[in-house]
């Protein structure tokens, strides 16, 4: 029966399309859901850290821990930053690059985040905006954005140790690109406002 046969094919096709559509949307929202949920779990770990505990794992098998909190008062943004900027830690929060100055330490503190989740707000930042960094000792260090630019991923000298107290935020560029893995980076450099007291 040709009619039945055709109907069957159409039905199967519909099922396949629907299922794969659900699967794709599921995968996409999984990434966002993970990013949002992790920040909630991290709040608890961060308040533990502020109480003086060291390297509080946000969940038992985590291979990272919160190291500082970034806030942008103008945008009402607050992000908890994790140790290390590997792919696995960036899924949960912005990551502090090993080897760059630790939060509150003299030098260039480099933090990277995903352009479509935690660091999406970077596109709304303007030169002159205030950023605050809360260290694990609970000290708030004020920064002011001095420079915003788009660079190529090979320009690693932005990670260099330099003789000044600065904060470098990195995310991928362009913000609305559909695919991950592009070679351009969006970089926000903020200068520390006053010498910190530690």
């Amino acid at each position, binding site marked *: 029966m040709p009619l039945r046969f055709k109907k069957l094919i159409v039905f199967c096709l*519909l099922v396949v*399309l629907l299922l794969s559509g659900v699967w794709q*949307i599921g995968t996409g*929202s999984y990434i966002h859901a993970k990013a949002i949920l992790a920040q909630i779990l991290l709040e608890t770990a961060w308040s533990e850290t502020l109480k003086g505990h060291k390297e509080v794992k946000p969940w038992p098998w985590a*291979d990272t821990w919160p190291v500082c909190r970034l806030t942008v008062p103008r945008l009402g943004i607050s992000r908890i930053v994790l140790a290390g900027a590997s792919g*696995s830690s960036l899924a949960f929060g912005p990551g502090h690059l090993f080897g760059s100055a630790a939060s509150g330490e003299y030098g260039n503190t480099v933090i990277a985040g995903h352009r479509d989740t935690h660091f999406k707000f970077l596109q709304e930042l303007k030169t002159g905006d205030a950023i605050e960094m809360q260290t694990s000792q609970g000290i708030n260090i004020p920064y002011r954005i001095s420079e915003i630019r788009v660079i190529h991923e090979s320009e*690693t000298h932005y990670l260099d*140790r330099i003789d000044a107290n600065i904060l470098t935020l990195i995310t991928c560029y362009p913000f609305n690109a*559909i695919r991950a893995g592009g070679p351009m980076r969006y970089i926000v450099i903020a200068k520390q406002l006053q010498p910190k007291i530690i």
Partner: protein
Amino acid sequence: MKFQKPDTIISSSLHCICAGFIAGTLAGCTLVLLVMLLSAPAGATAMDDMTADDMHRIENPAAVRQGTLLFKGEQDFSVAPILKTDVQINVTGMIARAIVKQHFRNPDTTWKEGVYVFPLPEDAAVDHLRMHIGQRVIEGQIQERQQARKAYEQARSEGKKASLIEQERPNIFTTSVANVGPHEEIVIEIEYQHVVQYDTGSFRLRFPMVVAPRYIPGRPVAPKEITVNTFEGTGWAIDTDQVRDASRITPPVLHPDQGKINPVNIEVHLDTGFSLQHITSSYHNIDIKQESETGYRLTLENNTHADRDFELVWKPEPDKQPRAAFFSEHKNGKQYGLIMMLPPEQTRGEVLNREVIFVIDTSGSMSGTSIMQAKAGLELALAELKPGDRFNIIQFNSYTELLFQVPQPVTHQSLRQAKNYVRNLQAQGGTEMATALQAALKQTSEHTGVRQVIFLTDGSIGNEDALFRIIRQQLGNSRLFTVGIGSAPNSHFMSRAAEFGQGTYTYIGKVEEVQEKMQILFDKLQHPVLTDIRTTWGDDLAVEAWPQKIPDLYLGEPLLISLEAEALPENLHISGMVSNSDWHSAMKLQGGKEQTGISVLWARKKIAALMDQLNSRTEQDEVRRMIIDTAMAHHLVSKFTSLVAIDVTPARVREEILKSQSMPVNLPAGWEYEKVFGQLPQTATDAELYLIRGMLLLITGLLLAVFSRRYTRRYAFTV
């Protein structure tokens, strides 16, 4: 079929899409909850039957967070002098004397200073420097390091052509050459000597060609902390509290995309004195010509660039295998000697109930071909384990991770876990070796038998001395066997670490060698070791022999002693312990072959031994003085003495500017640039892509639904 209005069709399909979207989002969120609440970490789930508890990570936050590749500013190599190297090595018996000619050509119209950081064999005794300016040759003088540098810097500022050879590590040297005129070429000729390695019946000659990028642990030290005695180097790294001279041992590395630089020619004249079974070059194509019964001339194929070690291996005919040799030299009223003796082969004794700790370097520098070699080596070693043995695997990069909390007995289950673990190893991150070494040497069980630590690494670190200290202090009853991996291993680290660890070292330079080299190591592990070796010279002669503490000898390893005396002793008595019983041997030292350079070898051995004492003894100034005296007397470059050559007439007038350039080097063959020097992190997810793709699929579904309804409807009317 029931008739439906088109808008009903669309609305029902829209429902369908919305439901799909909601279902997808819900599925995603549920997945998050499931994964976060129930499952083990991603790394562990990838392994068949491994639970999160099976792996134990040791963190050393203080070390981990600081050390990494810390860069200084960018450099422009387009105007750096262009380098070409010619090497001629003459091998007589066991002694190799080499002449290395570094051609510095200035491609630019301004005056240049070139600074080139390059490797030599770790036991190289550098005793000559000659600077060729056109037809003129200026011979270098040996001076204390600070003095030589001062003389060089003064000549540089006065516009005189000058060159300086300094030692940074036993296997890393720096050539500086000042005032190379526009489009001019200056040739720096360096001469050195060392003993060819003789092991398991084969002779090996190694010529390293490139200083591999080193991992620099520690916190950066601010320039003000650097004392006036140090001077900043030209490398890519910043000096740190753990590697005070990091900037001097890290030559800038050219990105492989920019092609290979630094072409090398090597010519070896080999006169062994016995007929050979075979002669091979391990990693390069060579041309071999036999010139006499025991003499050969070997040349490297054209178009070779300095990006990996050169190794020549020759094997005597089985019956021509030398068992003992004695070379002597009369110089400045003193007698010098070099003694080689191969202890008789012991019968294979099955070593039972071993505890074997495997340590594998999984840092970024191992990425590429190195990690494949290391994994293959480790898999072979696992297969060698016997029931009754215990074992553990430790991997390290920025972190140290133990497979088992404590060493486990060899069972099917534990071996399978280990094999899975090894298969899934990946190379990335830093090289925090100290924590791994400490974890490996730490006794965690009540095991009292033989404890062997097999350490697979490329040794690309800058803090060798700190690691040697750990080995010496924490060795206990463990024995450390280093396996040098990759195209340009740190030979100084490999050989010294094994010596302090009372073990042996092995090199694996390509995957095809893994089987053969590991087998040699397994044989050594399973044969009795000759320990507590002592020498007596008889007749109350004043003999100064080095090394004073003779290292343990494993299967196939010869005893090597350098000596200085007023008159050569006639006899040598050697005693030692093997398998808990005494061992004695004697050797006549008459009729030794007279050969030049034996005194230099003796001085080099003495300096090496004294350098070890620098780390442990309190009278540092006294030891330092002894090193300088020995080096000056034998015209040798050492950590505290340099060779400097200065032209008398100024070439550059003061008005013209001199530009200093550090000479770039190649990335070692098989390495991955990005894994070593990093790149800005990848900071985007494919979430958007998934969402759009999902929406497209659902919309296609909708269109299909609408279309098929219409089709059905039309069909229904015609019936």
